[in-house]
């Protein structure tokens, strides 16, 4: 069996440019959406020109996500495999999925008001991916050559996307239920509404995260001769799972709903970001796939 694949560095360069193009569009969208928010805060949620600006921002995000998608796709073609085998690829694919899930969700749920947060977050992720995590296309090391790479990682990305949206909603909830009444907060719906929305994204995230954990264990049993070994990445996946489990209990415990549960959402999402950045780069473990 000859497993040497031919990588295409030129196409990878094209992919990088496309992703940077998407980054530019997202940045413009972020500015437009911020403008719309301040306008809403000043002139009321129903303000026509603010709503027009919001729609322009969302359309921009839509066109950004299209270019972003081609960028991710070409990266995969250039590497001849799924585009999520190192930190750079995980970031660009993850931010694509976040944006895509968010935009798709706006058709079902009234969550246009967090577009500013989502676009800002995505700009941050792509920006750091491009400057800090960029690596040339490489073939998969033997440990990663398995179909579980497709399942385990893609579901982890999907779960992260739902958690991210829930975290944005929770952040607004915390600001809204705080003592200081910022003018900007008028642009957002009620605390009850935010709580419900955040819960709905969190439970989908939690189901996906549970699946990620189980899929990871199945793969670990195949690749590392045990299904669970408290590898640093396993530890943090477990910690995240436990925090969100606590969150679910909080939502039905009197005195913990609302603001406290929202804090748990933020702590959970911080743990996810920590797991992806600090644990990947500085902690010793078996998941040494950052490519850096």
């Amino acid at each position, binding site marked *: 069996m*000859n*497993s*040497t*694949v*031919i*990588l295409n*560095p030129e196409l990878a360069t094209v992919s990088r440019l496309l992703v940077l193009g998407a980054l530019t569009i997202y940045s413009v969208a972020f500015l437009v959406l911020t403008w719309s928010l301040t306008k809403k805060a000043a002139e009321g949620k129903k303000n026509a020109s603010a709503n027009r600006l919001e729609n322009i921002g969302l359309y921009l995000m839509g066109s950004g996500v299209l270019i972003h998608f081609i960028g991710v796709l070409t990266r995969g073609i250039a590497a001849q495999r799924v585009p999520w085998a190192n930190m750079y690829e995980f970031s660009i694919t993850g931010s694509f999925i976040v944006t895509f899930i968010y935009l798709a969700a706006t058709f079902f749920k009234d969550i246009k008001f967090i577009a500013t947060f989502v676009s800002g977050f995505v700009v941050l992720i792509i920006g750091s991916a491009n400057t800090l995590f960029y690596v*040339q*296309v*490489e*073939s998969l*090391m*033997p*440990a990663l*050559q*398995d179909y579980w790479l497709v399942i385990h990682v893609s579901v982890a990305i999907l779960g992260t996307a739902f958690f991210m949206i829930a975290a944005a909603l929770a952040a607004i909830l915390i600001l809204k239920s705080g003592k200081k009444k910022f003018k900007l907060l008028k642009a957002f719906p009620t605390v009850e509404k935010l*709580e*419900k929305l955040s*819960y*709905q994204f969190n*439970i989908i995230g*939690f*189901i996906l995260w*549970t*699946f990620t954990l*189980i899929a990871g*264990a*199945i793969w670990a*049993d*195949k*690749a*590392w*001769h*045990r*299904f*669970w*070994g*408290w*590898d*640093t990445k396993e*530890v*943090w996946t*477990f*910690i995240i799972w*436990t*925090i969100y*489990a*606590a969150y679910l*209990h*909080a*939502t*039905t*415990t*009197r*005195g*913990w709903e609302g603001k406290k549960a929202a804090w748990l959402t933020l702590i959970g999402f911080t743990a996810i970001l920590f797991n992806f950045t600090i*644990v990947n780069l500085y*902690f*010793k*473990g078996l998941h040494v796939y950052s490519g850096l």
Partner: protein
Amino acid sequence: MATRRPSDKYVVRKEYNEPIEAPDLTIKSWLRWLWRQLTSMKTALWLLLLLAAAAVPGSIYPQRSADPNGVTLYFRNNPELAKWLDRFQLFDVYSSSWFSAIYLLLFISLIGCVLPRIGVHYKALVSDPPAAPTNLSRLPEYKKVEIAKADLSPAIEFFKERKYKVAVVGNEIRAEKGFLRESGNLLFHVSLVGVLIAVGLGGALNYSGQRVLVEGETFVNNEAGYDTLSPGFLFDTKNLIPFSLRLNQFSTTYDLRNPSNYAKPLDFRAKVSYTLLGKTEQALIRVNEPLQIPNAKIYLTGNGYAPDIVVRDVNGNITFSGPVVFLPQDTNMTSLGVIKVPDAPKQFGMMAFFYPTVGKLKTGAFTSVYPALVNPVLSMNVFVGQLGLEDGMNTNVFELNTHGMKQVAGGKSGTKAIMLEVGQKKELPDGLGSVEFRGVKRFASLDITFNPMELWVLIFAILTLTGLIIMLITPRRRLWVKKTASSVEVAALAKSKDQALGKIVSEVAKAIKKKNK
């Protein structure tokens, strides 16, 4: 007047959420109070958070289970601090008494909470929906329609069509739906207990062992066949199933075509033949593709070179012969090995570097520039003196304790290190005889493990996920329709954040209005 809520409005048992009253002073009531505290939702929540926090140090400090070398290194670099950390079991976090205490309390709390709920849920399944609260207008969703002597049949129809459990008592319709929510919730929690038990039992009944095999060598599955063997405390090593496994050939594929990926390994293949119950079969073990035979799984976890070396004394008698396992030091497989010759007239040892494709650094030092065998060279430093094999020193085959030994070749000894290409033979200094580099074999590190509970862990994990999905996507709703002389009231209560609840109440009200026009 306080609203009379259905008794199980919150989490079935009142005490899960009701503020807990101060206990009176008898031991029995005190214990009862303690038990209620432990099985309360709030305690579960705190224990979960505590568990999350307690897991953190295990990712910061090296753990004996996952990274024993890291622990050794930590002790060497910070002996004082390490001693203290060890006292608090920070190198064995996940088997520590404090971590175990947290998760055991959590599971006791879980069982104490879930067991009574099973009974309550069963009762709810077989009995009619509960009676309406006195004051319906206080429920989260409420609608009042002004119709005298209304016909409620469209409401009954509405509920039946949507598979509600319905009871009509006098002027009141009671409807309930979504029992699967609690079923899923219970399945989730019970399966979690299953996972814990299966993992615990698996830890006691499993075994895992390592063995390094050079091409041509055979491993026999008994205690002596392993380099290291760690059985669970209930595993009897006599129960190792009798099989043998020979490494016929080990090969790798390196990337030679892509500049960005140059010399990176793409594939490792261990061709083996194994004999089980008198039958011999061929198999291929790769990373991610362990060999599975009954009661054992064999994994490929590492590989490297084993140069075949022969040492002779001045009279030509062989004092050492065979392939020696060299440990890879970098991605180009510069490898380090130790040859101990205790049977020579004068004991000596050699610390040797092996370069599969030799190259020179700017400093003049040798290194390997490519991981495959293109231009293999062996470079040996020779040390004369007591090897200490008799008194237990130097028992690690990969280490040569040169303390008290005299270097006679390589380093600052004045004699150059002995460099050998395949097939070459050279004289050793100090009248030690000669050394010959006969060829290179490859070795594979194998892990042999078996965990009889593995399948059960998987089954319970899948049940956990199933329960979770059912619980989180099923809304549990109760609706009441109440007729008075002049009006009809519709009200609803949900157990979770249910966005459709208001809509359903409106629909029921609308259906009644339409019929009674």
